[in-house]
C-alpha cells in the first residue's frame, strides 16, 4: 500500500466528525453571516437583504457598546484573578497533608453546579436589602450600613466578577495541580541540594514548568470569559441600566426578545471575530512564552 493510500485510510475516520462539525458549526456560522445582511425578525421567513445596515447600527447601539466593554473587562479580570489564585491554591493542594483530598473536592465543587444556580444562591448573599446575608454580616461584625451590591454600577460589576472567580478558581487549580504532579521530584531534590530556597524552587522550577498549563488555563479563561452569560444575567439581569450587560445577553435580547434576528446575527459575527482574534493572539503569545521559559 502506497504512502498516500495509507494516509487516506486514516483520513476516512475523520469523515463522520467532519460532517458533524460542518453541519453544526460551519453551516450555522455561514448562515449567521448571511442573516446578518438581512432584516430577518426570527419569525417570518420573508425577509429582505439590507446590506451592511446591521453592522452600521452596531456602533450606535448603547447596549452593544456597553456589552463589549463589560465582557472584555469581565474576561480580563476573571483571567487575571483566577490565575493569581489558582496557582498558589494548586501549590497548596499539591502538598502532602491529612485533608488534601477533601480540600481538593471542596475547592473543585463550585465549578460543578450551573452558573445560573450559583448566581441564584449568590443573589441571596448579595441581596441589597438590610436583611441580605452579606449586609447582615457586615452590619453585625463591623457596623457597616447596607451596600447596594447588585445595583451600584461599580459594585455590580465587582460582585459579578467575584462570583465568577469563586466558581472557577478550583477548576483551574485542578489543571495546575495535574501539571504540578507531572513535574519530576528530582528537580526539586537537586535544587535543594544546591541550596535553593522554597521560593527559588517555585520561581525557577515550578512556574516555568507550569507554562503549558498556564497556556491552557488562560485560553479557557479568556474564551469562557468572553462568552459569559449565565452569572451576570442571573445576578443582575444586566443592570443597572446596561452596566453589566454581556455581549451574549445583548445577542439574546436583540435576537429573541426584540425580534431583530438580523442585528443579533451581525453582533454574533463581530463577536466571533473578536474572540477569534483575542484567542489567536493570546495563544500565540502564551506559546512563545512557554518556549522561552522552557
Amino acid at each position, binding site marked *: 500500500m502506497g504512502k498516500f493510500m495509507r494516509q487516506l485510510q486514516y483520513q476516512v475516520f475523520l469523515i463522520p466528525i467532519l460532517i458533524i462539525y460542518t453541519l453544526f458549526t460551519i453551516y450555522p456560522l455561514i448562515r449567521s453571516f448571511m442573516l446578518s445582511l438581512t*432584516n430577518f*425578525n*426570527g*419569525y*417570518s*421567513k420573508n425577509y429582505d437583504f439590507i446590506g451592511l445596515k446591521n453592522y452600521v*447600527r452596531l456602533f450606535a447601539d448603547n*447596549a452593544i457598546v456597553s456589552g463589549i466593554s463589560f465582557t472584555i473587562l469581565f474576561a480580563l479580570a476573571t483571567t487575571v484573578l483566577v490565575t493569581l489564585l489558582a496557582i498558589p491554591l494548586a501549590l497548596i493542594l499539591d502538598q502532602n497533608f491529612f485533608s488534601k483530598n477533601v480540600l481538593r473536592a471542596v475547592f473543585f465543587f463550585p465549578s460543578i453546579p450551573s452558573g445560573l444556580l450559583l448566581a441564584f444562591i449568590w*443573589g*441571596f448573599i*448579595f*441581596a*441589597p*436589602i438590610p*436583611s441580605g446575608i452579606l449586609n447582615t454580616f457586615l452590619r453585625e461584625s463591623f457596623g457597616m450600613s*447596607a*451596600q*447596594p*451590591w*447588585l*445595583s*451600584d*454600577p461599580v459594585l*455590580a460589576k465587582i460582585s459579578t466578577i467575584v462570583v465568577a472567580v469563586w466558581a472557577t478558581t478550583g477548576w483551574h487549580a485542578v489543571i495546575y495541580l495535574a501539571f504540578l504532579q507531572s513535574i519530576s521530584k528530582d528537580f526539586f531534590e537537586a535544587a535543594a541540594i544546591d541550596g535553593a530556597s522554597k521560593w527559588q524552587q517555585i520561581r525557577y522550577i515550578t512556574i516555568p514548568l507550569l507554562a503549558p498549563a498556564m497556556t491552557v488555563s488562560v485560553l479557557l479563561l479568556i474564551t469562557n470569559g468572553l462568552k459569559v452569560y449565565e452569572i451576570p444575567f442571573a445576578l*443582575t*439581569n444586566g*443592570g*443597572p*441600566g*446596561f452596566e453589566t450587560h454581556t455581549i451574549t445577553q445583548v445577542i*439574546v*435580547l436583540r435576537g*429573541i*426578545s*426584540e*425580534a*431583530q434576528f438580523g*442585528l443579533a446575527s451581525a453582533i454574533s459575527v463581530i463577536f466571533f471575530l473578536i474572540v477569534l482574534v483575542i484567542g489567536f493572539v493570546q495563544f500565540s503569545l502564551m506559546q512563545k512564552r512557554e518556549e522561552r521559559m522552557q
Partner: protein
Amino acid sequence: MKRKSLLLIMVMIATMVLSACGGKDSSESAASGAEGGQSKQKVKLSILAWNNESEMKPVLEGFQKKYPHISFDFQFAPPVKDYISKLQTMLLSDSATDIFMIAAENRNEIIDGGHAIDLTDYPFMDVMLDSNKPMLSKDGRTYAFTQNGWVGGWFYNKALFEKAGITELPETWDEFIAVCLKLKEAGIVPIYDTMQDLTQIHSALYGNMVLSQDPDFDEKIFAGEKTFADGWTEVFKVWKRDLIDTKILTSDMIGLTGDQVESEFALGNVAMFFSGPWVMDKLTQVPDLDFGVMGLPGFEKGQSYYVGAPGVGFAVNSKTKNKEEALLFLEYLSSEEGLQLFHEGTNLIITAKGFEAEVHPALQNAYEEGLMQGRIYLPMVTWPRYQEALRNQFVVSTQDMAVGKITPEEAVQAIDKKFIEMENY
C-alpha cells in the same frame, strides 16, 4: 463471527422497524367509545403553554374524558422570555405544537408570520369578551382565544400600616406619598420595587395622568401624531421627584428579585409591593399576615388605576395536522365545564361571557374598580408594535434614572430614539 454479528444487527434493525410500524398502527387504530359512539382515529394533540401541567391538568382531563380518542403531548415553558424563545425556535423549525399561546409580547410576530389560524368566525369565540380581543387581534381579526384576565395592585400589610399610625388608605397621589413617608419615619420600608420590568407604578401613573384624559394616547404615539416624550415625561418627573428624590424607592432595590420582594412582604419587612392573583395562594398560607390590595391613587379622589390585561390566548398552529381536534379543544375551553376546570387548575380570573368569576376577597376592589371598569393598563397590550424592544428600553431608562445617571427627559428621549430605530429596521 462476522456473519453472526451481521445477522444480529439485521435482526435488531428489523425488530426496530417492525416495532415502530406496530406503534404507528396502534396509535392510529380505531378507538371505540368516542363521542356519539362513532369510532374515531386516535390523535395526539400537542400543546405548548406557560401554565404548567398541574395547572392545566383539570381541563386536560376533563377534555380527555369527553373525547377519549384524543390524548395530549403537553409541553411547558415558563413565562415570558423562556416561553417566547421556545415557541420562536419551534415555529422557525416547523416543529411547533398544534396549540400554543399568544401573549402581548409576541402577538405581532406570530400573526404577521402567519403562524396562527384566524379564529374570528368560530362560534366559540362568542364567549370571549370584546375587551379581551384587541390584544390577540390584528386588523379586526382575532387569532387566539382567552377566557381570563388579570388585575394586580399594591398589596399592603395592615399591621404595618397600623403600626405607623395610618388609619385610612390613601385616596390621592399626595396622600399615597404621605403614607410612604409616614411608614419611613416609623422605621418601616414603605415599598419595594425591583425596577426589573416596566414598573407598575409607571404604568398606573400613566393611566392616571395620561389615559384618563386621552384613552387613545398610545394609538397616537404609534400613528406618529404624538411621541413618548409627550406622554411619559411628566410621569417620569413625578416618579423621580416623589419616589426617588424622597428615597421612598432607592436604587439598591434594582438588585432585588421578585421572589425576594414577595418573601420580604410575607415576613412583614416591607409595607407594600405590587403583585397579582398569582401570589394569593402563597400569601394566604402565611399565618398572621393580614393584607389588602389597593390601586395606585390618582391626583384627584376616586381616580385609582390598576395594572392588568387580558390573559394569554390559545392559538391553533396554521400548520397543524390536527386542526379539527385543536379547534375542538378550544371549543371545550369555552364551554361552561371547560371554563370551570380551567379556573380550578389555574386560579386565574375568568372573564368569559356568562361565567360568574370567583375572586379572592382581597382582590375584589381591584376586580370591580380596575378590571371590570377598564381602569387597568399594561403598555405591552396597547402598544401595537415593538413591545419587547420598548419594554427593555423602559427598564434600562428607569434603572439609569434611579441611579441618577440620566434625567427623566433623557430617559424619554432614549425611548423615542428606540422607537424610531425600530421603525426603521
